[in-house]
C-alpha cells in the first residue's frame, strides 16, 4: 500500500463518517476486517495502552462490535432510542506509516450529538490501521483518543465515535 494517496484515505473516512451520521450501522460494520478492533481508552491512559491490562471505555473485537451494531439498531437500546442526530467532521488526515498490506492513518474528529434538546460535543483523534480491499479500504483497527476531560458533560458513548 505504498502508493495510496491521502485523498483516497479522506474519501474513505468521509464516507465512514457519513454512514455513521445516517445510522447505516450494518453497512458501516462491513468496513471492518474480521480481526478488527475498535477501542476507546480512558482519557488518563497513554495513547498506546493495552485493554488487556488497563480499563478502557470501549474495547471491541469484531464480534463485540457486531453486537454493538445489533444492539444500537434495537428499540431497546434505550440510550439511543429514538436515535440521536449526529454530525461528524473529520480533518487533519495524515498517512503516518506505510507497509505492504497496511497503512496507519491519523485524523482529528469533532462529533456533535443531539438528543432530547441537548447537544454534546465529542472531540479527539482517531488512529486507524487500514488494509487494502478490492475496491476500498477496510479497517483493521480504529482507536479513538478522546481529548476531553473524561466524558463531561457528554456522559456516555452510546454512539460510535
Amino acid at each position: 500500500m505504498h502508493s495510496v494517496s491521502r485523498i483516497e484515505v479522506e474519501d474513505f473516512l468521509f464516507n465512514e463518517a457519513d454512514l455513521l451520521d445516517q445510522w447505516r450501522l450494518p453497512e458501516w460494520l462491513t468496513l471492518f476486517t474480521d480481526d478488527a478492533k475498535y477501542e476507546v481508552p480512558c482519557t488518563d491512559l497513554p495513547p498506546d495502552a493495552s485493554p488487556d491490562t488497563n480499563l478502557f471505555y470501549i474495547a471491541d473485537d469484531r464480534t463485540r462490535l457486531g453486537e454493538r451494531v445489533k444492539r444500537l439498531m434495537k428499540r431497546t437500546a434505550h440510550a439511543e432510542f429514538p436515535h440521536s442526530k449526529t454530525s461528524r467532521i473529520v480533518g487533519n488526515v495524515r498517512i503516518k506509516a506505510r507497509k505492504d498490506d497496511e497503512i496507519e492513518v491519523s485524523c482529528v474528529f469533532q462529533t456533535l450529538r443531539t438528543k432530547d434538546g441537548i447537544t454534546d460535543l465529542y472531540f479527539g483523534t482517531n488512529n486507524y490501521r487500514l488494509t487494502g480491499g478490492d475496491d476500498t479500504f477496510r479497517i483493521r483497527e480504529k482507536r479513538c483518543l478522546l481529548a476531553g476531560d473524561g466524558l463531561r458533560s457528554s456522559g456516555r458513548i452510546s454512539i460510535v465515535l
Partner: protein
Amino acid sequence: MSTETQPALLVDPAQRIFKVARRNFVDPDIFAAEKERIFDRSWLYLGHSSELPKPGDYITRIVAGRGILFTRDSKGQLRALLNTCPHRGAQVCRERKGNAKSFQCFYHGWVFGSDGKLRSQPGEESYPEGFKSRDTSNMQAVPRFESYRDFNFVSFDRNIIPLVDYLAGAREYLDVICDQTDAGMSIVAGSQEYSIRANWKLLTENSIDGYHALTTHATYFDILMSSTDNLAAGTGGGFGYDLGNGHAVLEYAAPWGRPVAQWIPGWGETGKTEINRQYDKLVSRHGTERADRIALKNRNLFIFPNLVINDIMALTVRTYFPTAPDYMVINAWALAPNDETGWARKYRLNNFLEFLGPGGFASPDDAEALEHCQRGFKNSKEAMWNDISKGMGKDNPSHNDELQMRAFWTQWNRQMYPAPISSIKGVAA
C-alpha cells in the same frame, strides 16, 4: 422554608406504603441542605491505597466540592490534604497525578512536603522566627481521614463516629469482597470519568435496584444469552439487605461469568482451569461455604451516601457527587486481585466493558433512565410521589424488591430532618 414543612417521605408500614417526594430530586433548597447535612456529615470515599504505591505518589481529586491532594508521604503514610495554600488560598497542586518530593504553590512560591508541611517560602527573612513550625503555616489536612482494608475515606465532620463503626453491616461485605484474594487488591489503571444529567440520588437508587435489570438492560441480556448457556445460574435468586446507617446490599446468583470464580462456556478450557484454580484456593482458605459465597454470589454494595462497590461480572468502585440538583459527576474504577493471571485480568476487563461504564452495553441505558426520571420530575408539583414499596412486609425481601432503597432514604431523611421525625410517621397517601 417549604422544604422543612412538607414531608420528604410518606411511610406507613401497616398499609405497606413507602413514598418519596419527587421534590427531593429537584428542589434547590434541598440540594443546599444536602451539602451540609449529608455530604458534610458522612464518610466519603477518597481513593484506594493501591493508587499511591510509592512514597511521593499523589492524586488530586474533588470530594464533596473540595479539592483534595491525596498523597503518600516520604515515610509511606497516606495523607489527605486540602489542596489550598495556607498563604493566600491558591490551589497548590494542579496536576491530576504523579510523584513529587514537594509541591510548590506557583502564586508566591511556597514549598510543601508530601506531608503538607511548609518547607520554604521566598523572603523567609520577612517572617518571624518559628513561622515555619507553626501548624497554620502547613497545608491543612482534611478533618478526618480513615481507611478500611485499603479503602480510604475522608469526612468533613470532626465529630463523626469512627469509619469502622460507620460502615456497620457493610464491613462484613467489604470483607467478603476483599477475601477474594490474600494478596491484596489494586485499582487497574484507567479511570472512567463521566456525568449524568440527573439527581445524584437517582444513581444511588439505580445502583441497588435489582428490579430494573430485565427491562432497562434487555439488550445486554440478549447478548448474554448468546454468549453463555449458563442462564440457569441466574435463576437462583437472591436477597436485599439493610446494612444499617443507610448502607445496603443485594446478594444474588447471576448467569454471567465471574473472574473469581464462576466459569461460563465462553471462557473455554483455559478459563475453566483458571477458574477452578481460583475456586480451589478459596476453598482451602475459607472452606466450601464461604468460598461458594465469595465465588458464586454477586454483590451490589452501597455505602451511604455515594459509594458503590459492585462485585459482579467484574469488581467496580464507583463514587459520584452532585454539582447541581440535576447534574452529577461520576468516577468509576476497576478493582482486581493482585495475584490474578494475565488471562483473568484480560477477561475481567473484557467483562467489565461489556456491561459497565459509559461505553458498555448497559450503563448508558441506566443513564438514559435516570435522565428521563429527572425529566419526569418536572411534573413533581402535581405528580408528587415515587413509590418504593416493593417487597415491603416480606420477612426476606428479594434482591429485586426495594428494601435497599428504603434503607437509603430512611437514613437520608434522618440526616436531613433530625427529630422530631414528623415526616416518617406519615399518613397514608
